């Protein structure tokens, strides 16, 4: 049973107590504890259940690499799954629950899986659940969904109350890792005058040097670390950041760092996480190394732990997983754990060393302190169901015949170390196999390269394979200086002298015992989180999965949230052995960002709630909001769909708005319409190319409707062009088209017609534009008073004028999208709201009625006017819509002309625009198809047309629609059958609706109303 030691713990404050709950039970820890150390101190050994077999699992590691101790953190709104207990700093009131247990952590029904491991071998998804098919849905899937998986998904109805943000920084050197190598690199870079950001993922500087008893310049490492931090803090060009993990390195020196600002002290009004988005010239990865487990039978039982992690728990937090620990190793470093345990007053019955000899300084010390050291020995099994009771020893080079049982309650294992090369690899840095240390380290000849083709990442210290503290510091200095010289920074001076025990060579041990039989191999865990064992990788190899990438996916090795931090090299070595290949030839999987998972909140940053996305507001938006507007999104605008009065339905509001406009006076906020000024000697020529019609012949003071097509001939936008003067035009675009069309113009001007003298400016937002529509439109403007003559004679249809209306600076356009007498009045945006209010006040006697987009759509449909996005969908050309009148026959060219001459575009069989009237007066379903006899090659019903716009018209008192129909204009009066999704009364085939082909102009076909 794990325990809190009576004293010790360099990071905790024993004078204070912090309380928290785990699975509902209240427990205590100290400030400075991690959740992991506090649980260990509270005697909790089993912290979770494994993914497939539901085996009880405890802590393996003490940091970011922890595969087992994942918990649900928080509850309700703040609940977050898959949080590593080892990287969760304890705070008062923390709540955590264990994951993947069913029904309880201690008694789990899924554990039966482990008794029949044949049920879930490598590739079991692919093999087992194929037949019979119905079983998948009804038997296997529900079972797997219940038993597999890790944390509980957050409640979708809850909203995360925390805030997040991002921060952009530009610097010269980013250093990842605040151990002695990272600090030394920062000192070198800082003294050289480089701008530096130094990030450390934990809450403490110094890494593991203080735990390992390293001395620097004759003093304990801690003293040197404090001095180094102090010196760095005083440097203006160096920025230090704790609890900040460099998560990813990308092209062009882009680095993402993940700062956990207040995870350790929540409930204050500070951001929870902050995502640093950094541009840097160079990256130094002082990311250290991770210890590897040893693959012996039962190595996943709670109480079996990495030797270095056990040392961390004892030295940093004064806790231990047990009172009697057997150490099993293939190297000298693990002896430090045995010595640390002795120092803490704990028992070490023996050290099991797989090497034939152990004569280094550390083994000698261990022997001198009375520890029994067994060489050439391995572990054949671990006794105990939910913890360690004893280990069974055997000869390492043998099948695992048990020679002795050693009673113990914990096992510290060390299979050697692997440098953390992730940041080197993210951008394509290659690795080389280090034979002596049995690990991959960065290949200095093949670094990740930046935009100049130069290597821009350097691993230093243990991350570069300099694992022994004495070489770590020197390596950090040399590598950093080299990198600094590449960016023109020079530094000299002596390197601090490091003293640490020398270490004899390790011996690679990939399987313990070396010639274990199948039964034992099925109990040697490689990937703890995903339950992948030595036997699974060997099975994959036998089944032909020779590539490491394929083996990974087949067995799920290294695919868990820890991304193989512990399992990678061990799994690779087993695969290499099974294939009878060298490890470097088998290769490794690719490390991809992020180093450990980062929160979705940090990725979203501040973009949530009201600033989730920019919502564009017209000058009149406030009035809409205060007057019952029901909004619909149009681009990033929110336009009123209709204005509902109390107790009114949307439909009734729309009908009221239309009737008022057609009989008296309607007002529309048309400010969102795109407005682009096009000016220059070549402006006319330019617009002639953009539009299908002729614009250069337009007279100043006049307006013309135009169609814009893309190079493929398809209709992309429409609108009215007003000629301002000889060399300038005002182009109106659709609301959604303003930015796109402006970009389209600049694209052609900058890349194709760069020598044409044309300037454009998008002034959409400079004006509030209000459509004053209806028989009383002129009356209300006259009432406001104007220095303009607004009569039909002075300002006829399709003309414009500039002057004062009611004292406002106005541009008045006689254009109509409703078929009524209509003035679109543009005033400067700053005067927009006042002008709107003035119109409402003056229009009160005419029942001035603001209307929304739906009324706008119905009124234009009543007139047979097309709408971009309704009648067009990117496959429609103007000719399909009967708009031949808007296509100039005289012009030699315009964008889309050539495409419109292609055979498919000129085919008489293209569907063409017609009006549609249902025989029963109902409204046709939107998107409905006109069915035709027979079926096509796919057995689907043939079609001969489709509905593009369909509305109830209060003016006509019936449903009206427009659609594209085969040979439509030639079939006036013919009745077509349209499909619906409504079932017939008897409930068989859906009903169809009969509709007659008519002219698309339903209302005022002569256009008399707009010309008064």
């Amino acid at each position, binding site marked *: 049973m794990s325990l809190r030691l009576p004293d010790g713990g360099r990071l905790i404050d024993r004078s204070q107590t912090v309380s928290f709950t785990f699975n509902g039970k209240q427990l205590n820890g100290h400030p400075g504890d991690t959740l992991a150390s506090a649980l260990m101190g509270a005697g909790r050994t089993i912290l979770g259940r494994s993914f497939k077999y539901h085996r009880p699992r405890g802590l393996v590691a003490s940091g970011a690499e922890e595969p087992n101790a994942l918990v649900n953190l928080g509850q309700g709104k703040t609940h977050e799954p898959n949080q590593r207990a080892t990287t969760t700093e304890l705070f008062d009131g923390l709540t955590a629950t264990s994951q993947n247990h069913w029904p309880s952590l201690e008694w789990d029904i899924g554990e039966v899986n482990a008794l029949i491991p044949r049920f879930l071998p490598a590739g079991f998804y692919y093999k087992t659940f194929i037949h019979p098919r119905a079983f998948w849905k009804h038997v296997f899937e529900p079972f797997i969904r219940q038993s597999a998986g890790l944390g509980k998904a957050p409640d979708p109805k809850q909203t995360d109350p925390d805030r997040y*943000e991002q*921060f952009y920084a530009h610097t010269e050197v980013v250093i990842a890792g605040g151990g002695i190598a990272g600090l030394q690199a920062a000192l070198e870079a800082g003294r050289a005058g480089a701008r530096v950001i130094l990030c450390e993922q934990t809450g403490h500087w110094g890494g593991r040097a203080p735990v390992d008893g390293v001395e620097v310049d004759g003093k304990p490492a801690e003293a040197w670390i404090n001095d180094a931090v102090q010196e760095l803090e005083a440097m203006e060009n160096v920025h230090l950041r704790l609890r900040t993990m460099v998560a990813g390195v990308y092209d062009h020196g882009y680095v993402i760092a993940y700062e956990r600002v207040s995870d350790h002290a929540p409930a204050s009004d500070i951001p929870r996480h902050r995502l640093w988005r950094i541009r840097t010239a160079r990256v130094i990865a002082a990311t250290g190394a991770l210890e590897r487990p040893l693959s012996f039978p039962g190595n996943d039982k709670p109480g079996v732990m990495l030797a270095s992690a056990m040392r961390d728990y004892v030295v940093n937090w004064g806790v231990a997983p047990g009172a009697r620990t057997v150490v099993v190793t293939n190297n000298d470093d693990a002896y430090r754990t045995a010595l640390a345990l002795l120092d803490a007053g704990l028992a070490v019955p023996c050290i099991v060393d797989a090497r034939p000899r152990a004569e280094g300084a550390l083994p000698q010390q261990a022997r001198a302190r009375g520890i029994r050291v067994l060489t050439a020995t391995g572990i054949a099994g671990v006794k105990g169901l939910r913890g360690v009771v004893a280990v069974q020893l055997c000869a390492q080079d043998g099948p695992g015949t048990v020679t002795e049982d050693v009673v113990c309650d914990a096992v510290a294992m060390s299979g050697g170390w692997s440098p953390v090369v992730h940041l080197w690899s993210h951008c394509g840095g290659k690795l080389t196999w280090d034979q002596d240390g049995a690990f991959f380290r960065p290949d200095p000849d093949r670094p990740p390269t930046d935009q100049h083709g130069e290597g821009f990442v350097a691993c230093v210290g243990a991350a570069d394979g300099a694992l022994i503290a004495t070489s770590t510091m020197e390596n950090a200095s040399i590598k950093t200086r080299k990198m600094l010289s590449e960016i023109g920074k020079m530094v000299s001076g002596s390197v601090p002298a490091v003293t640490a025990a020398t270490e004899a060579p390790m011996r690679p041990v990939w399987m313990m015992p070396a010639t274990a039989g199948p039964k034992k191999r099925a109990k040697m865990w490689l990937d703890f989180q995903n339950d992948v064992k030595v036997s699974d990788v060997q099975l994959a190899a036998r089944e032909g999965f020779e590539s490491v990438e394929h083996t990974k996916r087949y067995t799920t090795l290294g695919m868990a949230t820890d991304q193989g931090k512990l399992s990678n090299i061990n799994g690779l070595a087993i695969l290499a052995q099974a294939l009878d290949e060298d490890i470097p030839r088998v290769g490794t999987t690719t490390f991809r960002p992020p180093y450990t998972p980062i929160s979705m909140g940090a990725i979203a940053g501040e973009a949530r709630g009201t600033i989730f*996305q*920019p919502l564009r507001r017209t000058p009149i938006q406030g009035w809409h909001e205060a007057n019952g507007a029901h909004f619909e999104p149009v681009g990033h605008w929110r336009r009123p769909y209709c204005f509902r009065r109390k107790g009114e339905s949307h439909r009734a509001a729309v009908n009221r708005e239309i009737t008022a406009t057609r009989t008296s006076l309607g007002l529309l906020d048309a400010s969102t319409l795109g407005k682009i000024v096009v000016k220059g000697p070549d402006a006319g020529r330019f617009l002639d190319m953009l539009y299908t019609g002729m614009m250069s012949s337009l007279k100043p003071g006049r307006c013309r409707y135009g169609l814009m097509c893309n190079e493929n001939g398809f209709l992309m936008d429409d609108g009215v062009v007003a000629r301002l003067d000889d060399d300038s035009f005002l182009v109106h675009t659709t609301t959604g088209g303003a930015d796109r069309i402006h970009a389209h113009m600049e694209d052609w001007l900058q890349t194709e017609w760069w020598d044409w003298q044309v300037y454009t400016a998008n002034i959409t937002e400079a*004006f509030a534009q209000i459509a004053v529509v209806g028989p009383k439109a002129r009356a209300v403007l006259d009432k406001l008073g104007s220095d303009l003559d607004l009569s039909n004679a002075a300002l006829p249809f399709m003309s414009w004028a500039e002057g004062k209306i009611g004292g406002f600076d106005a541009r008045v356009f006689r254009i109509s999208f409703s078929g009524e007498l209509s003035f679109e009045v543009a005033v400067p945006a700053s*005067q927009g*709201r006042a002008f709107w209010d003035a119109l409402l006040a003056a229009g009160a006697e005419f029942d001035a009625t603001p209307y929304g987009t739906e009324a706008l759509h119905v009124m234009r449909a009543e007139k047979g006017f097309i709408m971009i996005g309704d009648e067009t969908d990117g496959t429609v050309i103007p000719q399909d819509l009967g708009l031949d009148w808007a296509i100039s026959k005289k012009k030699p060219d315009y964008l889309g002309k050539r495409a419109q001459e292609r055979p498919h575009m000129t085919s008489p069989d293209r569907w063409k625009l017609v009006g549609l009237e249902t025989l029963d007066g109902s409204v046709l379903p939107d998107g409905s198809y006109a069915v035709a006899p027979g079926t096509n090659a796919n057995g689907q019903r043939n079609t001969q047309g489709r509905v593009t716009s369909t509305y109830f018209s209060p003016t006509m008192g019936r449903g009206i629609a427009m659609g594209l129909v085969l040979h439509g204009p030639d079939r006036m009066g013919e009745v077509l059958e349209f499909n619906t999704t409504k079932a017939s009364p008897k409930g068989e085939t859906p009903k169809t609706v009969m509709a007659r082909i008519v002219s698309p102009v339903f209302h005022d076909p002569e256009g008399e109303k707009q010309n008064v």
Partner: protein
Amino acid sequence: MSDATVSALKGAEARGLVTLRDAGLTGMVTLRADLATAARAVKRVTGADMPGLRRITQGQGCRVAWMSPDEILILCEHATARKLAFDLTEALTGQHHLALDVSDARAMMALTGEPGPLRDVLAKITPADIAALPLGEMRRTRLQQVAGAIWFETETEARVICFRSVATYVFDLLAMSAREGGAIGYH
């Protein structure tokens, strides 16, 4: 109608790590032209020298900011922008150009505070190198999801321009970035 004119933000203000406020209606005239040939006319109308890359120059009652190799922005009193655009058009007769009053297409905000927090708050919403932005330089950039421009009047006051329709978004964005508790201490 000057009494009825309103800025997009109507004098909004927010306090936090720095103080954010609506800078009110500001005259803005955009000029697109060959800047070298237009320099004399610009000097005659504004009194300002043609600014170099990203710089701002001072004129009589106005300032001229470099926007792109063929575009400058003239900042002036809101009431004089229209006339200034007209005068520029007159002065540039014969030279291909486009001078427009775009005052109402934009919104301007002012941020005041200690130099460090001021730059920190801005660096939360723009990828531009805020640390390297000197006084007298205008930086066109991205304010998270929209376009904008930033410059420093003094080390303790910055100005932000964006399009009018997204003024509320940018204001809320800055207010959130400036909220107490979000101090960084980088700049």
